[in-house]
C-alpha cells in the first residue's frame, strides 16, 4: 500500500535531512520533487521492480544495502521474487525502477516473521547436517553472498550462495583458488607464489576410474582434511542447502577431473557418507558452473549408482535436492527405467527393478508416475508402456563405463573412545 511505504520511506530518509518526527506522514510527504527519491537510501525489506539481465522488470526484494566508499552511491542486494537465490545480486540505483517508487507500486516484506517461518520449514526438511540456529539475525548473514566470484583454473565463476569462510576472508570479493590443492587465496600474486612452491597436479586420493581424459579420485575426509574442507567451502558457494556444520571426517569425496598435459582439473564431485543411516548414496553432488552442460552431472549420478551396485546397497541422494539436482536426477532415473523396461518381456516387480538398478523404490515409483508409466487398472497396478517411445529425454550425458572402475567397498572400523 502506498501509504505504508511512504511512511517507512520517509522514516528511512531521516538519514537524509528531513526534520520532524511526525507520525502523520501524509502531510509531510506531500509530493516530493522529481529526483529527490533517487538520493534516498532504500530500506531493507522493500519489494520493488528491478531490471533483470534480459531487460525486463522483475519484482525484487532488498535484502541488504551498503554504501560504496568511493562514489557514495548505495548498492542494494536484491532477491528476485520467484527466482532462485543464486540469482540474487548487488545492483546500483540505475537498475531500480524509481518511477515505481514514486507511483507507489511497491510492497513490503512483512517483517522478519516470514523469514523465520521459511527457515523453520527448511530446517525440518533438512537432514543430519542441520543448522541449529535460533536467532534469525545470524541467519540473515547467510542470505547475502560474501564472496562475489572465484577464479578456478582458467574460469572465473560468480558465486551463487554464501559460504562460511574464516574471518580473514570477510572482506574479500574475489577468491583465487589453486585447482590442484583447492587452497583459496585473496590475490592473484599470492596464488602465483603459492603455486610456484608446490608441484601437486592431482587430487590427493586414489584413482578409481579412468577413461579417455576423465578420472575420478576417491578421497577420505578423515585423512585429507585440508583438501576436503577446502572443497566443502568451495562447493558451498554453489549449493544452497549444504551445511558445513559438522566436519568432513565421516565422508568420502569422489572428485571428477578432466586430465590434460598440465594436470587433473577438477570439474565436479560428490560426497558420500561412510555409514549412512538412511541409505543415502550421495550426500552433496556438484558440477562447477564452468563445466556444466557437458554431461558431467549425469556422469556423477550414474557413477554413484555404479558404486551402489558394487556395494549391493540400494541408494538415493540426500534430500533436499536443489532444482538443478532434481532435474538431473529425474532425467537419469527416467533414462534408466525406460532402458530397463523397454527390454522387459516378463512382468516385473518394483522390488526387482530396485535390485537391478540399486535405485530406491520410492524414486522408482515417483519417476514412473511422473512419466505416466504406472497406472491402476482393475484392482492392480500395471506398467503402461504404450507411449514409452514418445518420452522426451534430455541428453544422455557422459556415459560411465563400469569396467573402468577399480573400487572395493571398504569396511569401516571404528575406534571406541
Amino acid at each position, binding site marked *: 500500500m502506498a501509504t505504508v511505504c511512504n511512511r517507512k520511506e520517509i522514516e528511512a530518509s531521516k538519514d537524509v535531512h528531513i526534520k520532524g518526527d511526525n507520525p502523520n506522514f501524509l502531510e509531510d510527504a506531500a509530493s516530493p520533487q522529481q529526483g529527490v527519491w533517487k538520493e534516498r537510501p532504500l530500506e531493507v525489506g522493500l519489494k520493488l521492480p528491478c531490471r533483470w539481465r534480459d531487460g525486463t522488470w522483475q519484482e525484487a526484494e532488498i535484502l541488504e544495502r551498503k554504501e560504496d566508499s568511493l562514489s557514495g552511491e548505495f548498492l542494494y542486494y536484491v532477491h528476485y521474487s520467484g527466482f532462485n537465490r543464486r540469482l540474487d545480486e548487488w545492483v546500483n540505483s540505475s537498475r531500480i525502477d524509481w518511477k515505481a517508487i514514486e507511483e507507489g507500486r511497491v510492497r513490503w516484506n512483512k517483517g522478519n516473521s516470514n523469514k523465520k517461518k521459511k527457515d523453520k520449514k527448511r530446517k525440518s526438511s533438512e537432514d543430519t547436517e542441520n543448522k541449529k540456529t535460533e536467532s534469525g539475525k545470524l541467519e540473515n548473514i547467510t542470505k547475502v553472498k560474501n564472496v562475489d566470484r572465484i577464479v578456478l583454473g582458467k574460469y572465473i565463476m560468480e558465486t551463487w550462495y554464501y559460504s562460511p569462510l574464516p574471518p580473514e576472508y570477510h572482506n574479500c570479493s574475489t577468491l583465487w583458488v589453486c585447482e590442484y590443492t583447492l587452497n583459496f587465496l585473496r590475490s592473484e600474486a599470492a596464488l602465483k607464489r603459492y603455486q610456484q612452491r608446490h608441484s601437486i597436479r592431482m587430487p590427493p586420493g586414489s584413482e578409481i576410474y579412468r577413461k579417455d581424459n576423465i578420472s575420478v579420485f576417491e578421497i577420505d575426509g578423515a585423512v585429507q582434511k585440508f583438501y576436503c574442507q577446502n572443497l566443502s567451502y568451495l562447493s558451498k558457494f554453489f549449493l544452497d542447502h549444504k551445511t558445513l556444520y559438522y566436519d568432513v571426517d565421516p565422508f568420502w569425496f569422489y572428485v571428477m577431473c578432466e586430465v590434460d598435459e598440465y594436470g587433473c582439473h577438477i570439474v565436479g564431485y560428490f560426497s558420500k557418507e561412510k555409514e549412512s543411516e538412511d541409505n543415502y548414496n550421495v550426500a552433496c553432488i556438484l558440477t562447477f558452473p564452468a563445466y556444466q552442460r557437458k554431461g558431467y552431472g549425469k556422469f556423477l549420478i550414474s557413477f554413484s549408482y555404479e558404486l551402489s551396485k558394487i556395494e549391493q546397497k540400494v541408494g538415493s541422494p540426500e534430500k533436499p535436492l536443489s532444482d538443478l539436482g532434481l532435474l538431473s536426477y529425474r532425467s537419469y532415473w527416467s533414462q534408466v527405467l525406460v532402458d530397463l523396461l523397454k527390454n522387459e518381456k516378463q512382468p516385473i516387480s518394483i522390488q526387482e527393478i530396485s535390485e537391478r538398478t540399486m535405485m530406491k523404490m520410492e524414486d522408482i515409483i515417483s519417476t514412473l508416475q511422473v512419466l505416466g508409466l*504406472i497406472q491402476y487398472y482393475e484392482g492392480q497396478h500395471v506398467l503402461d508402456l504404450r507411449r514409452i517411445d514418445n518420452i522426451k529425454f534430455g541428453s544422455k550425458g557422459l556415459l560411465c563405463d563400469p569396467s573402468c572402475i577399480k573400487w572395493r567397498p571398504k569396511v569401516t572400523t571404528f575406534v571406541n573412545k
Partner: protein
Amino acid sequence: MSRPSFRPRPIDLNRPLQIIRSNKDFPVQEELFSTRGLPAVETGVDPSEQEERHLKEALLASLLKDDRRKHEIEIPIPVVQERKSPIYESQKPYYLPKEYVQEVKKDISSFLVLYEADPIDEEFVTQLNESNEYQLSLSDFEYVMDMLERIQGSEDDFAAYSKMKEGLKSLREIPESLKEKIYQHWFRRRQENGQPLLRILRKPPPVDDPNPSLAFRPRDHEFGAQKGTENTYENYRKAVRMRRDFEKLRMIVEQIVKRERLKREHLSCSIVYSRLVLARSSVKMAALMKQSCMNDNNVLCIYDKGTAGLNGTNIYIPLSGLALPSDIRKAILGGRFISDRSRKSKKRRRSEDTSKRDEEKEEEDRNTSRFDEYGFDEAGQRFIKNMRYFSDGFVGSGVNPYDHRVFEAASLRNTVRYPPWKPHDVRLPDDVPFCSPVACPSSKSTRFRGRLGRGGRIIFDRVVNISHEEVSPLEEENGKLLPFSSNVVSLQDNVTAIPERLRSSKSSPGLLSVDNMWLRWPSKKNGEYLGNGKHASQERERSGYLFIPENLERMKRESHLST
C-alpha cells in the same frame, strides 16, 4: 468412468507388474486408468524452492511430450567467464602414470606452505627491505611465517625463541637479524589475532555454537561406533555371522597351509630322488655330491651295494634346505629307535661322516621344532604315542590323557622295553580260527606281529603281504616276486622298492639297485591301502624309517623272514 470414491490399494512392491505394450493387451477405455492409486509425487526439493518459476517451467517442459519446444528450458545461472591470459604456460607438462594412482597417505597440508601475506605483512616486508641489504622476497617471508606457525602449533603458551631458532636453522640465506625481526612480527600478529594464523591449526568451533558463519564442528560421537557396538539383537546376529565367516576363513587358510606344505614336501622328495639318480650316474657325480655334503649338517647316507663298477659305496646326499615330510625326516635323520641307540653307543658308527646324527638330531629338533595342536614337540609327540596306550583308560574317569602327572604315573608303571612298532613276526598255526586266509588271499603264509597293548596285553596284528599288482616293476624285472610286508625288511639282494614319494616318475628299473630298504608308504592319495585295509596312519606310525646298513644286518638276523 472413474468413480469419485475410488480408493485403490497401495502398490505392492514385490508383486510383478503387468506390462502393457499395446492396446491389444488391455482392450479397455482409457478412462478406467487412474493414477490416484499412487501417493503424490515427492520431488525431494525444498518446498520454497519448488515454487520457483524457472524450476516449474523446466519441469513442465520436461513432461511435455510434444516437440514444439526444440530447445530445453534452462534454469538461468550466474555468469561464467573464461580467462584469456595463459595461465598454464609456466607449468611443466605432467602425465598420469599408467596404473591408477594410489592415494596419498598423509594430509597434503603438511607439505604445503599455507601462510598468505596480507597488506600488513606486505608493508612490513617492504620496510624491512628498505633498511636491510638482504632483500627478502614475499615468498620467503611467507615460508618463514608458515614455519613459525607450525612450530608453535595450536598451543597457547608460546614456545621459546630458542626453539624457533632451531626450526629456522634450515633457512641459511636469511640473516639472523631478519629472522628475529620476522619472529617478532609474527609474535605480535599472533597475539593480536588470539588464535593461530593458519586455518588448519585453529581449534574447531564448539559443537553447540549455532552461529552459521562457523564451519566444521567436530562430531560428538564417533559416527557409527555407537550403532555398531550397542547391545541389540541386530548386532548380535551380525557378530554371529562374522564369527561364522571367520571360522570358514580359518579353515580355508588351514587347508591352504596344509596344501602348500605338502607341495613343498613333495618337491623335496623329488629333489632327493633326482640327487640320488645324479649321484648314481657316475663316480665323479658321487664325489661331487659327497663334497657338497661337507658343509651340511643333514646328510642322507645310502649304501649302494652294487652295480657293475661300484662296489659297496656310500652315497651321500645333502639334505639341508629341503623340507622333507616329517616322517621321512625322522627316519633319515635318526628315527626314534635308531637315534636313541646311536646316541648311547658310538661304536655303532661305521664311518665318521655317516650322517652326523647327534648334531643332526639336535639340529632337527631345533630346526624342526614343530609343535602340534596341543603344544607338544617331536619328542613329546613320540612320548605321547607311547603313553597313549596306558593313559587312554583314564579318560573315562575324566582325567585328561595328556596330563603330565598321568604320564609320569603311567611311565613308572609300564616301561616300554620294546617300542610297539618293532615288529616281531610270529607264525601261528593255520588252524587257529581267526587267522583265516580270506583277508589275505595271496599270501603263502599269514604273518603276525605281536605288540604290547594296553595294560600289558599282547596283541597279534595280522601282517599281510602285498598283492601282486602292487609289485614294483623292479621286482618283476628280476623275475622274482617278492612278497614283502609293509614293515619288514626284504633282504633280497639287489632289489628294493622305492616308496612312491621318492619316485617322481616311473624310473627305469635297471638304474637302481640300492640295497637299503625304503619302506613302502601307504599313500592315501593314490588310493592305496596296504592290502588289509589298515588305517594309513596306523601304518605310518609304525613304519617309516630308513634302515641304516648296520641295522640291516641286525634285522636280517632277527627277523624270521625268508622268501
